């Protein structure tokens, strides 16, 4: 069966070298390891699924937070909600001046709705909001006059920009009887503050979860190395290179990571699908149009890449702890 093995007469250790075909050999070895990895993972489907699930869950929250963050950002940048402002009349403004103001506001373009509040209504509202505080009631009785002005809540058409809002405020301020004009943006500002805070907390949480994903990959690859020590010993004896011995474990790390990224994508898709309806009705109650953006193909690619990166990182950690050798 054997053909002649030619003795070679050269001296020194130079002869223990590969004989050409580096690239072909390198490619062929990747093919070998890829099929080996498929076999290894399919033979341990249950534990592989578990690893994918763990990595996937760890990747899901960072992915979701990223989507939430980018949505909030675009939302507050191109703010398209129904803007509003409140016009406060002077306390000494006559009833006629107040009625005149209401009329002029209603005749303006871009304005959806104007709600007038009389000083009496304002007082009732304030008392109601303060829980009918006895102290406040007595204070009002003591002052004898109503300290609250008449006001108009003005809701503008959808799509009115901040600039238009600000321009309107400047136009209204000098009008007779007008004391102050306040742009009603508090809920938006609150949302901004909240999203700032949330992205900081989210970033911290995300880093911890990504670390957890690396640790899961690390532990799984470590177990794989332990379970194959016998094989590694044989491979070393028959002349596998260190790179050849490490390669399967880098593939395991990659497979665990990419699989985890895939699981995360599925979980995020399910989650977004679940919150879409309630989010839309919430948006309607705020009179804003909302559409969840960000679940795009670049995002999917980034999730897979991130998973791959973390998986390889875990594998490298495991390999640095326990380098396969003779």
């Amino acid at each position, binding site marked *: 069966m054997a053909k002649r093995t030619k003795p070679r007469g050269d001296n020194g250790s130079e002869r223990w070298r590969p004989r050409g075909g580096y690239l072909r050999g390198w490619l062929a070895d990747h093919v070998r390891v890829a099929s080996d990895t498929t076999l290894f993972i399919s033979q341990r489907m249950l534990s592989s699924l578990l690893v994918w699930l763990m990595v996937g869950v760890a990747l899901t929250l960072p992915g979701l937070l990223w989507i939430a963050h980018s949505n909030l950002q675009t939302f507050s940048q191109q703010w398209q909600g129904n803007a509003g402002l409140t016009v406060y009349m002077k306390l000494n403004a006559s009833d006629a001046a107040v009625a005149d103001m209401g009329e002029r506001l209603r005749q303006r373009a871009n304005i959806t709705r104007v709600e007038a509040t009389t000083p009496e209504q304002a007082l009732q509202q304030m008392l109601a909001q303060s829980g009918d505080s006895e102290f406040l009631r007595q204070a009002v009785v003591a002052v004898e006059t109503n300290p609250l002005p008449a006001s108009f809540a003005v809701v503008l058409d959808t799509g009115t920009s901040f600039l238009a809002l600000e321009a309107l405020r400047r136009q209204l301020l000098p009008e007779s009887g007008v004391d102050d004009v306040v742009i009603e943006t508090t809920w938006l500002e609150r949302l901004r503050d909240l999203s700032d805070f949330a992205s900081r907390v989210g970033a911290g949480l995300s880093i911890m979860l990504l670390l957890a994903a690396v640790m899961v990959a690390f532990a799984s690859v470590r177990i794989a190395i332990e379970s194959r020590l*016998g094989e590694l010993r044989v491979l070393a004896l028959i*002349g596998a290179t260190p790179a050849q011995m490490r390669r399967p474990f880098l593939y395991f790390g990659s497979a665990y990571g990419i699989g985890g990224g895939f699981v995360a994508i599925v979980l995020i898709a399910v989650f977004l699908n679940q919150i879409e309806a309630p989010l839309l009705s919430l948006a309607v109650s705020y009179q804003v149009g909302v559409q969840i953006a960000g679940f795009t193909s670049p995002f999917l690619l980034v999730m897979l890449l991130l998973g791959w990166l973390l998986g390889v990182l875990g594998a490298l950690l495991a390999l640095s702890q326990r380098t396969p050798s003779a």
Partner: protein
Amino acid sequence: MSFLQLQHVSRRFDNGSQGLANVSVSIEQGSMVFLTGHSGAGKSTLLKMLIGAEQPTSGRVLVDGSDVSRLGSKQMPWFRRQVGVVLQDHNLLEDRSVFDNVALPLRITHLRAKDIERRVRGALSTVDLSNKGHLFPRHLSTGEQQRVGIARAVVNRPRIILADEPTGNLDPYLSRQVIALFHQFRDLGSTVLVASHDIDLIKDQGCRILHLSQGELVQDTANLEQAAD
């Protein structure tokens, strides 16, 4: 020029036991040599040194002029690919079929699948296991497992064959067949070193016999012949 060479090689283990004690021996290229001695004499230790799996505490181990313990991690794999080793505990991979176990040394050298198939079939037939390629090691008898290990050692057509008790679990008929296989490789140019304590088997092979005892080389038939001349 001697091909395998031990120069005053000693190996003392951490627990104090002496694996080898000042062994010097030269083996010619293309020769077949037996290594014998009682259990614990140092046969396995000597073979492991020739493959770089064991380091001498003192002395040098040379293969074709290169000091094996000084081969770097870059050269060691390429060196080992030219050596076929049969281990005493045959070290088969339990989760691979017989075929895949034998194919292992070829897979890491990236032969084409067709060539791998052909060579593995050939190696299996030389150890009488042609019809067992699809089985797993646990389905084989100890002697059959040993023969799989032998097939794995020779499938790569190595320049050097180091076999540690390759006939330990074989009946006399199969033992002679395995030795005949090694002769065949020797005839093709390989250098073969076989450790065995089966004196009856090796004494009439017409080969040089090295006798180890407690780590020392106590008898070398090459020297006897010289003395007789």
